[in-house]
């Protein structure tokens, strides 16, 4: 789902200003106008509408999953999504990776003075749609406006709460030798979409972010495999980083098969040109699941029956050997380490 400032169905609310003013964050009349005209119509729900200092929620009992994340992506709009999509989906996914059903989000906005109100509106529309799609409500929030240069256009922090079903116990420390490592689809799409749009590089086919809410896919997988060991969405640092975290937390090795790793041709091409390995590139709509070997086929079938897991694959297996390391058997039959990345990914000279 992609929305750009020029292309939205819901018209821009009428105000005296075209851009966000410092006064919009003053707590006075302009703040009230911003909240009433821009935020409330988008996130409409009874809890938020009370406009109290807090959301009071009916707790369904059981264990809660609780997470928070800040989104500072540049550009705000990119092929395949926007900061609004990420702010909802990213936090929904962090809740879902605990096996939980996401219920509520909070959203806090830090806005740079001078941001066009049309841009803010487009971001909020994207958040509205993403929250609707994910079945979560945004029940509380905050807005601050800072002076020019004090932040870059718009930062959003979202916090998520969800309920963990009985019997589900997911942890990076749960892996056991023999377990299968599954991945829900192609890797590197989000990071490469951002990098290529930021650097103005274009390839034969456009690379789009994969931003999506994964909790329904998670529920479908847990339904056939409640004893699932671990689940994580490989965002920053990519698949390589997540697998290294798993291997270290559990004190096991992980052996991947190079041929099994799904990468779109355009992402591979961009990676070759920039000297960046898609294994280290961020995803925003993919998950890695570790399951007992005997559940591999059942979980893969459940994944593939869901649109977000249609290209699900078994990447490899957990080993007792090489504890703490992730390795790969290459297509040529050789082996190499898939290490943790060091710092930011830097393109090579030649």
């Amino acid at each position, binding site marked *: 789902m992609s929305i750009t400032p020029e292309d939205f169905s819901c018209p821009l609310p009428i105000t005296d200003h075209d851009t966000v003013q410092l006064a919009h964050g003053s707590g006075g009349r302009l703040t009230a106008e911003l909240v009433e005209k821009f935020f409330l119509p988008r996130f409409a729900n009874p809890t938020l509408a009370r406009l109290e200092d807090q959301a009071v929620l009916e707790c369904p009992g059981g264990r809660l999953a609780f997470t928070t994340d800040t989104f500072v992506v540049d550009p705000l709009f990119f092929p395949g999504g926007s900061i609004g999509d990420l702010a909802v989906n990213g936090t929904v996914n962090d809740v879902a990776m605990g096996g939980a059903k996401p219920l509520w989000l909070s959203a806090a906005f830090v806005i740079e003075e001078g941001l066009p109100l049309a841009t803010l509106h487009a971001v909020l529309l994207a958040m509205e749609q993403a929250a609707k799609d994910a079945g979560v409500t945004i029940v509380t929030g905050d807005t601050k406006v800072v002076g020019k240069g004090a932040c870059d256009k718009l930062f959003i922090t979202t916090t998520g709460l969800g309920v963990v079903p009985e019997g589900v116990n997911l942890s990076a420390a749960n892996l056991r030798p023999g377990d299968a490592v599954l991945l829900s689809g192609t890797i590197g799409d989000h990071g490469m979409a951002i990098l290529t749009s930021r650097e103005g590089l274009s390839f034969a086919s456009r690379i789009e972010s994969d931003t999506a809410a994964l909790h329904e896919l998670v529920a479908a997988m847990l339904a056939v495999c409640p004893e699932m060991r671990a689940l994580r969405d490989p965002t920053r640092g990519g698949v390589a980083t997540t697998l290294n975290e798993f291997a270290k937390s559990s004190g096991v090795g992980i052996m991947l098969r190079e041929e099994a790793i799904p990468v779109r041709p355009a992402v591979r091409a961009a990676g070759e040109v920039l000297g960046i390995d898609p294994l280290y590139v961020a995803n925003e709509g993919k998950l890695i699941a570790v399951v007992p070997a005997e559940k591999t086929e059942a979980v893969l079938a459940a994944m593939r029956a869901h649109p977000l897991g249609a290209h699900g694959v078994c990447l490899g297996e957990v080993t007792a050997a090489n504890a703490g390391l992730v390795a790969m058997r290459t297509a*040529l*039959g050789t082996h190499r380490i898939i290490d943790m990345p060091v710092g930011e990914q830097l393109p*090579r000279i*030649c």
Partner: protein
Amino acid sequence: MKYSDEYRDPALARRLVEEIHRTATRPWTVMEICGGHTHAIMRYGLDQLLPPGLELVHGPGCPVCVTPVELIDKAVAIAGRPEVIFTSFGDMLRVPGSRQDLQMARSQGADVRMVYSPLEAVALARQHPEREVVFFAVGFETTAPANAMAVVQAKREGLTNFSELVSQVLVPPAMRVLLASPENRVQGYLAAGHVCTVMGFAEYEAIAAEFRVPIVPVGFEPLDILEGLLLLVRQLEAGEHRVENQYRRSVTREGNLAAQQAMAEVFRVADRKWRGIGMLPQSGLALREAYAAFDAERKFAVQEIEAAEAAQCISGLILQGRKKPHECSAFGRECTPSHPLGATMVSSEGACAAYHKYQRLRATV
């Protein structure tokens, strides 16, 4: 992916590997000059496929690795000036100087920007006439033509706020120095395919004849490298020492004449210091007098900086193929990619980083 999958085909690779095993009857030591080859060999694990007697030693062809520490210090000093926008390829940002790297300088307020091409730096100079834009012109014959063109372009546009901090080095002088060393073990070269794409290989014919070593310019895909090794081993077994071009889809004997012309217009051959190896006569490029106005070292009159390398680091011996990374006492202990003591641990094309990234499994598989 078209134009690269064809050169990664496992069945064809197996056939080449079998042919190498059949051909090699004795131990041979060959050097891949280029860091791009070192990276590809480690990434695909090609060394794991070779006969035990066929030893690959890793050469000095990593531009990040051989850029002298003094020059990094100069880059940091220039980048720290308030009027300067310092631009560089991404690789150079993390190379340790004697006190700082460029990333640290950026965190302390220097305006350091990563670019993909020197022409982007020229564009920055055009957009910011009030600032001084400096480009870190690092690399071998591969980067020199574009770096030369940037200077030509800036001159043509009359830009007076663009300059280059030049650290260009040349491959053939280093190949000669290594072969002439009394401690040399190299019996054949896999020559750098992209350098040869620019320069051709006519220059290598004299080296092959003088030192009686076969030289094979190769491409960067697994099949290229394996075929290059097969050609080398065949010559070695037959006692031959010719220049034999494996990378025919890119390299010609004469090379890219337009690129060579641009280089010759802007640069002259000069003595250069190589990090870890020392001063090599006539081994690099410097700006010609006609382009002196674009020389950042003159423009900013940075002091001659004396810098010391970490005492434990043996990157000089590694760059000359005399030691392997794991033979260093600091490897994987005091010296890691997140805390590099020497440049060979920084760039993905540095032998130490490649070993650290891909080879720690060796002991356990």
